């Protein structure tokens, strides 16, 4: 992770760590903090705790998003301090809706100059974001709204399993992992497990990202804590609740960053610091998919 972030994330980049509640690569966010990257524009549908941490640590000057919050808990206090009180510095916002952000990634991935959707009518969002523009249908009176493509400099995408070549498979919630990867200039795939190419090729319909577009493959189990990886570990709700208290107080937040990010050298240290008991509580019992027969045609 350290090498991938050092090589591929540059000061001033547009960076997207995606994953809709699922497969959010907190370990990558922590490494970016540790390497003291600066002036990043962070993109993500749902800036949640990982972006609150990164923004508190000062890596970010601008946020592109559609919903900010601590999901199921409340607010993101570090972000709110910057937005409401410029404390300790202002934070630029560029705001869409979920479907708008999805469309932006899809336009980026498809090299389309815009993406059309039926949203934003009579909302105040286009008035505060002039990049959301009403356009006409060529087939009648109807109008739709357009959003512009989003092509991050770097996308960091967590997946359950990948081959050493970067062919990556995901199950459970897909979020925008595929779309952001195809839209980005540089792609880091972080996986729970490195598997043989033969495992990937046994089920090609499960492949979400081809190694072709991947610049680095990082094997980092449990990298999504306190988020989750379907089948590997559960969401650690206790952490989300605790974060609310930590983040309300900027001194306490700094202390947390010291204890859990700056003073650790890697995510393995973080995993160890959480302790095996905590991990045991987060491990689900198994529930396997029924396999399918692709057949051999020779």
């Amino acid at each position: 992770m350290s090498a991938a972030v050092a090589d591929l994330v540059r000061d001033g980049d547009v960076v997207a760590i995606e994953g809709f509640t699922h497969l959010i690569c907190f370990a990558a966010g922590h490494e970016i903090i540790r390497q003291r990257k600066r002036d990043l524009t962070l993109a993500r549908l749902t800036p949640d705790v990982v972006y609150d941490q990164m923004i508190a640590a000062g890596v970010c000057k601008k946020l592109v998003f559609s919903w900010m919050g601590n999901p199921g808990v409340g607010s993101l206090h570090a972000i709110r301090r910057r937005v409401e009180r410029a404390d300790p510095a202002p934070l630029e916002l560029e705001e869409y809706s979920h479907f708008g952000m999805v469309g932006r990634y899809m336009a980026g991935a498809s090299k389309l100059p815009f993406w059309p959707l039926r949203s934003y009518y009579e909302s105040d969002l286009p008035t505060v974001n002039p990049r959301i523009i009403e356009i006409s249908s060529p087939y009648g009176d109807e109008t739709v709204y357009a959003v512009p493509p989003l092509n991050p400099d770097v996308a960091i995408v967590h997946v359950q399993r990948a081959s050493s070549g970067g062919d990556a498979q995901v199950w459970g919630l897909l979020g925008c992992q595929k779309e952001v990867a195809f839209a980005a200039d540089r792609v880091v795939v972080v996986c729970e497990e490195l598997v043989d190419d033969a495992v990937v090729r046994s089920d090609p319909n499960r492949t979400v990202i081809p190694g072709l577009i991947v610049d680095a493959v990082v094997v980092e189990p449990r990298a999504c804590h306190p988020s989750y990886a379907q089948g590997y570990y559960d969401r650690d709700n206790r952490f989300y609740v605790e974060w609310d208290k930590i983040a309300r107080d900027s001194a306490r937040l700094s202390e947390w960053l010291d204890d859990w990010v700056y003073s650790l050298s890697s995510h393995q240290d973080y995993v160890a610091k959480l302790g095996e008991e905590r991990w045991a509580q987060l491990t689900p019992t198994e529930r396997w998919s029924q396999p399918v027969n692709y057949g051999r045609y020779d």
Partner: protein
Amino acid sequence: MEGATPTETMIVASARHLAGERVCFVGIGPPNIACNLARRTVAPDLELVYEAGVFGAVPERLPLSIGDPSLVTGATSVCSMFELFAYYLQGGLVDVAFLSGSQIDRFGNLNTTVIGDYSSPKVRLPGSGGACEIAINAHKVFVIMPQSTRTFVEKIDFRTSPGHLTGKRPAHWGAGPSVVVTGLGMYEFDDDSGEMCLTNLHPGVSLDDVQQATSWELRVGDHVSETPAPTEQELRVMREQLDPQGIYTRGG
């Protein structure tokens, strides 16, 4: 059994309104409990859609986030967020969606973006998420939110999700907010004026109470009924199965 809290009454009243509905776009918290209560009572065939990309969820526990892993395991289908928003929501398959807000006006327009000015907000709220497109494309919208003069306001600070605008919505949108359920009562919208109109008072709540909790002069229906109190069965399902820790229903 202990009597219902206002939140419990709000959830039960919403659940009952789901009778006969088929496809429901669910938010987390009270709407989620309402939908799962409805599946166990008035709407056994209700299919739950979550914006994370899940159709036909059968969560074995109370999901703590909109993308809880329990929504995935055993679901009918998991698709990309694009497909969920494009084919299910925009494509017109969602019968009812739940929305909430920090502010609502008499026409059901909702604010989840900011309190105060957008560029220097007093309180920065989460933003739209999927709410803007949900408000426009779902066949109808159920609003579920607490009621006070801070939430029921004359003029919302930001229109995140359009309701009945200033009285009428374009015909090619979904029908918009059809019911608002709060801890005090229930409201529907007048067909002609698009204005919110009191239809129900929850047990123990007076007309004066709801007017006191509303910033505009409330329109009152011809026949305001008392919401039937939650039954023993409804309370038991909610307290024992859906929210045993009382996280959402009793502020636990």
